[in-house]
């Protein structure tokens, strides 16, 4: 019988304590921690993994990244230029398939060539728009298909060699 009343008073006590705590937040307008997103954006931390970026001018075309990627994200097509160095003509990164595991970044032998940027807002309307094209062929013949790009570059190399 005593337990009955004790239970009631414990229940009442706990309810009132809880309500006292919540009302402190309820009436305090400064307690809000919401960040209004498009106006206020958070700085991502240092080792944040955003989109992949490749510094195509120092890329040696070793295709280590393309070979180690578990999901086949990187498409790499290389061509020998006039100095007998491999240049990456087509270097496509499919951001839709990337799992941000970082294996390609670890595999790349060149410092600061392939790394994660801090960009995380790259939604697109089609899957094709999610593929980033870093290849050198792009700079010389924009918007053409892959074979044409390779053909263009090889043609230019042949002309330069002559």
């Amino acid at each position, binding site marked *: 019988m005593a337990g009955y009343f004790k239970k009631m008073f414990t229940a009442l006590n706990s309810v009132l304590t*809880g309500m006292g*705590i*919540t*009302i402190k937040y309820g009436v305090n307008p400064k*307690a*809000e921690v*919401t960040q*209004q997103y498009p106006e206020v954006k958070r700085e991502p931390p240092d080792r944040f993994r955003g989109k992949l970026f490749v510094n195509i001018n120092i890329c040696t075309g070793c295709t280590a990244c393309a070979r180690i990627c578990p999901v086949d994200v990187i498409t790499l097509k290389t061509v020998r230029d006039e100095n007998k160095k491999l240049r990456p003509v087509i270097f496509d990164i499919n951001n839709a398939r990337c799992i941000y595991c970082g294996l390609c970044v670890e595999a790349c032998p060149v410092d600061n060539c392939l790394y994660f940027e801090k960009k995380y807002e790259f939604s697109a309307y089609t899957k094709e728009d999610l593929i980033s094209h870093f290849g050198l062929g792009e700079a010389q013949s924009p918007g053409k298909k892959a074979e044409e790009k390779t053909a263009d570059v090889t043609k230019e190399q042949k002309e330069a060699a002559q």
Partner: protein
Amino acid sequence: MTELISRIVGGLNTPVFLTRFLVTVLIMLVSGAIVLGISLLYEGLATYAERKVAGDIQARIGPNRVGPYGLLQFVADGVKLLLKEDIIPFYADKWLFILAPYIVFTVSFAAFVPLSYSDHIAVANLNVGVLYIIAISSVVSMAILMGAWGSNNKWSLFGGMRAVAQIVSYEIPIVLSLLAAIILPASMNMRDIIVYQGGGLGIFRWLVFNNPFTFLAFFVYFIAAIAEVNRTPFDIPEAESEIVAGYHTEYTGMRFAFFFMAEYGDMFVVSAIATTLFLGGWHLPFIGGISMPLWLRDVLQVAVFFMKVFVLIYLMMWIRWTLPRLRVDQLMELCWKYLTPIAFFNLIGASVWVLLLHGRGIYDIIARIIVH
């Protein structure tokens, strides 16, 4: 209403017979439409208010993008729900499935009728107002069973049966605690009850302050009413993490919106009953003695009524976002082992008080002592 009809018909000079009939029907439809419109507007804003209050308590801002301060959020929600695909499960019982949300919503909106919003504004001044609202709330349990069975889903059926058990059980503390308050004005007419609480500066003759038994009855009523409306901490039948979503698992789009809006409508109704019976209804606090034009008095009374109801609704929302959910057996234990005995003894105590003191409340006694 007959005077209104006679006045309108007397003003027109056309054959009386058919005009009276048409005018009667027109008045019925118009008052129904007004109540429906107000209740829908309230329910939309209640969903917005719930999200804002939830945000405030959880240290975040609620909706604030759609419209100024996010006020049009309920419109956006309504449009979204209207545009959703209307899925009826293949093996569901079509008639029962479709009929259930309509009945739930109709019942919740029909309970707005006997409330008296001011001295002269009421939709229908029923002589059995309080009992009518309680009876209507018990029809909701029927409609919930309809929806639960019609969904052809075991979890909906379990949720529906639990909801019905909860509603039926909690009617008893509600009725008993209301009875403890009704024996004083000795009438179930909502307006009479409010008129009984007049005088005393508009505050001191509230039934909640009348005697310690009605004071306790108010709290018992409020707790049981939260359970009746299926609000947290008693929302086992419809909680998202329990039993999928209980009896409205299979409902999509506007059908779900009907259930949802009916819950807010029910919240308004139980808060309105608490205001009417315990908190003095539409009596103006402290300024009731000042003479003012009739329309101003009515407007102020409606404002006071709604303000009190909204305070109680805020209290319900505050409780929802504070307390964890009760398990079904804890819920039933609370009702049968705690609330019902307390309500019974309360009723006996209140009856003894009224018998011995001839219906005088604490305010009357103090006033009498001061006067002598």
